[in-house]
């Protein structure tokens, strides 16, 4: 369906370009983008692209929906090795080092021509730029960026005798409330879990919320060291494991990322942690009043940032690079950043987007939309190192081993660190 839509847009624009005559040969660029949350995202992107093409008749954009973030980086790297890289793509901000190591992307500093362009690079929230700059250059422009927020079911809170307007503020409160919210049937089977933190696919991201709250970093800024076996990291993991195995207020084993919103809608979990990118999805589908809160604190508040940046590829011709840069700027104007935020729930990536009339009206009508933004000052960069996929996998494996009870948290983190050291040795 989405593929066909992309084809149709492409065919249509090709036809338009033809009918416009060969006099102004259009610059063609292909644009890969992933979808990681619920909702009709491909339709929205295709709509934006069509609009962009209308305003810029000299540029012909082919939007390609490329699956999950994982699929997208795989596809892009494969295409790159085959000499057929896209000119612009949305890829995880954390894949920056990988893309640089592969010599695949150009820094935006090379594309800047005017003062307005230069100002553009500084228009975004600093928390998002942590993952977008290294070595004094800007390699990515924030687009679908997020933080993790907590969603809670107000009806469930009321039934459990809790104040439906107050989300837990600390780890201890989270445990206490989750205990009261966990309900069992006659056979002792749980019908409603107190809290649910998904752990399939990319558990490191949700785990990084816990470590940030415990005031410990997972990596250095150069992306060459990790601190997986730090005692504070182990403590954070112990808390997560205890929620499930000791206190039994969190589903045991691996919790699916994909079905977590549905578990929330169906009342199987009273509180869930997931990306703010799911906000619009939850708003449309939750049959009960719900709240959105910043994550609770241990030593401090915290969440990793997440999500994707725009990258422009080195293999593009100068005209294509300029066209791609134009597209990136067009997609992230304050008005469009605001609209994208409203359409999806992702955090509008620049402060002035929140000053637009549309966004102001939206927040006034729906205050939870601002929670993720307000959490930004507490947010840290998402885990990102050289050989990112592999180093992150070492942590994912360790987390899943601990959550499934195969290893103790300390042992799991020790093993993960050993594996990360082995991989990163070459970069130190």
């Amino acid at each position, binding site marked *: 369906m989405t593929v066909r839509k992309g084809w149709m847009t492409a065919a249509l624009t090709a036809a338009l370009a033809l009918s416009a005559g060969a006099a102004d040969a259009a610059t063609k660029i292909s644009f890969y983008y992933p979808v990681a949350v619920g909702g009709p995202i491909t339709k929205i992107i295709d709509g934006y692209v069509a609009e962009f093409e209308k305003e810029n008749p000299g540029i012909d954009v082919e939007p390609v929906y490329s699956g999950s973030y994982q699929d997208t*980086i795989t596809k892009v790297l494969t295409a790159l090795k085959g000499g057929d890289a896209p000119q612009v793509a949305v890829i995880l901000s954390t894949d920056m080092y990988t893309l640089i190591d592969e010599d695949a992307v150009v820094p935006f500093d090379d594309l800047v021509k005017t003062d307005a362009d230069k100002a553009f690079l500084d228009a975004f929230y600093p928390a998002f730029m942590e993952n977008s700059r290294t070595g004094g250059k800007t390699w990515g422009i924030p687009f679908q960026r997020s933080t993790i927020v907590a969603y809670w079911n107000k009806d469930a809170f009321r039934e459990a005798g809790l104040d439906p307007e107050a989300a837990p503020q600390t780890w201890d409160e989270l445990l206490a409330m989750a205990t009261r919210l966990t309900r069992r049937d006659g*056979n002792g089977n749980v019908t409603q879990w107190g809290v649910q933190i998904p752990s*399939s696919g990319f558990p490191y991201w949700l785990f990084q919320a816990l470590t940030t709250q415990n005031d410990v970093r997972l990596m250095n800024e150069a992306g060459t060291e990790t601190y997986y076996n730090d005692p504070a990291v182990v403590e954070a993991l112990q808390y997560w494991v205890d929620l499930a195995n000791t206190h039994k207020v969190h589903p045991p084993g691996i*919790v699916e990322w994909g*079905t977590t919103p*549905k578990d929330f809608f169906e009342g*199987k979990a009273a509180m869930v942690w997931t990306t703010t990118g799911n906000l619009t999805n939850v708003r449309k589908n939750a049959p009960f009043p719900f709240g959105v809160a910043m994550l609770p604190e241990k030593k401090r508040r915290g969440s990793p940032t997440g999500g994707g940046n725009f990258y422009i590829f080195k293999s593009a011709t100068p005209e294509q690079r300029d066209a791609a840069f134009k597209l990136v700027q067009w997609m992230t104007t304050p008005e469009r950043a605001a609209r994208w935020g409203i359409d999806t729930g992702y955090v509008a990536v620049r402060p002035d987007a929140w000053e637009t009339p549309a966004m102001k009206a939206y927040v006034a009508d729906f205050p939870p939309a601002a929670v993720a933004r307000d959490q930004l000052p507490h947010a840290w960069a998402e885990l990102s190192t050289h050989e990112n*996929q592999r180093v992150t996998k070492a942590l994912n*494996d360790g987390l899943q*081993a601990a959550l499934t009870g195969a290893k103790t948290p300390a042992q799991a983190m020790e093993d993960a660190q050993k594996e990360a050291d082995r991989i990163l040795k070459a970069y130190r």
Partner: protein
Amino acid sequence: MPLRIATQVHGWLLLLPAAVLLVAFTHYPAMAALWNSLHSTPRGSRPARFVGLDQYAAMAQDPIFLQSLMNNALFVLGTVPLSIALALAMALWVNGRLRGRTALRVAYFTPTVLPMIAVANIWLFFYTPGYGLLDQITGLFGLPAHNWLGDRSTALPALMAVTVWKEAGFFMIFYLAALQSIPPTLREAADLEGAGRWTFFRRVTFPLLMPTTLFVLVNAIINAFRLVDHVIVMTRGGPDNATALLLFYIYEVGFRYWDTGYAAALTAVLLAILVVLAIGQFLYLDRKVHYR
């Protein structure tokens, strides 16, 4: 003399298309992989250099490689005997005179015809915790939801079940063909001798099926090492590498981490394992097989 040369040229020309394909798609890639496995992985700014057997030495230190090797061994043990036994049982059944046996044969063979990715997605739905078919059924009996693919102890068996379901129908076809080539006179002779059904199967049918069993066995083992699509769709090797099979790990190293040198070395190991297994099976079992 010129005629002989012409014949020679003619012969070689006839061989050429097949030879080109074989070299281009089999021999050259295999040799290139072997060659690459002796070099470091080139990165954007660093070209490949000769490292000898370093990539192979690294395997001994790589826990995921060792685990995927272990998983693959378990996978072979869990799927091969079971799918062969099932295939044989199904073939014996649908070989008999029974109503609607064509429909039954089709039903058994269907899983083989379906595309792997579609099959994996259907099973993914079966296994979805809480909402999947399996959990809806167990839910009727008041059992709690179980995350089949998210639990270390059930993830690999869950994948094995899919493979057995898929492979058994395919192997059944071979057995069915073999069963139909057994002359009915043997059955009549056995009846005259007063042999029971079990004795007949054990002493006559099964030995006559041995060539097929050998063939199926070799194929089943190769398939078990070749499986990758189900893993990608259903678990991506998780949780904590519990379902990482060798070929999947090679895919990850090669196409997710782009460590092509190491992936080439892993490929060489996989190739060596398959060669050893195949030679072993032929040398050992060939002596026990009765060919007519």
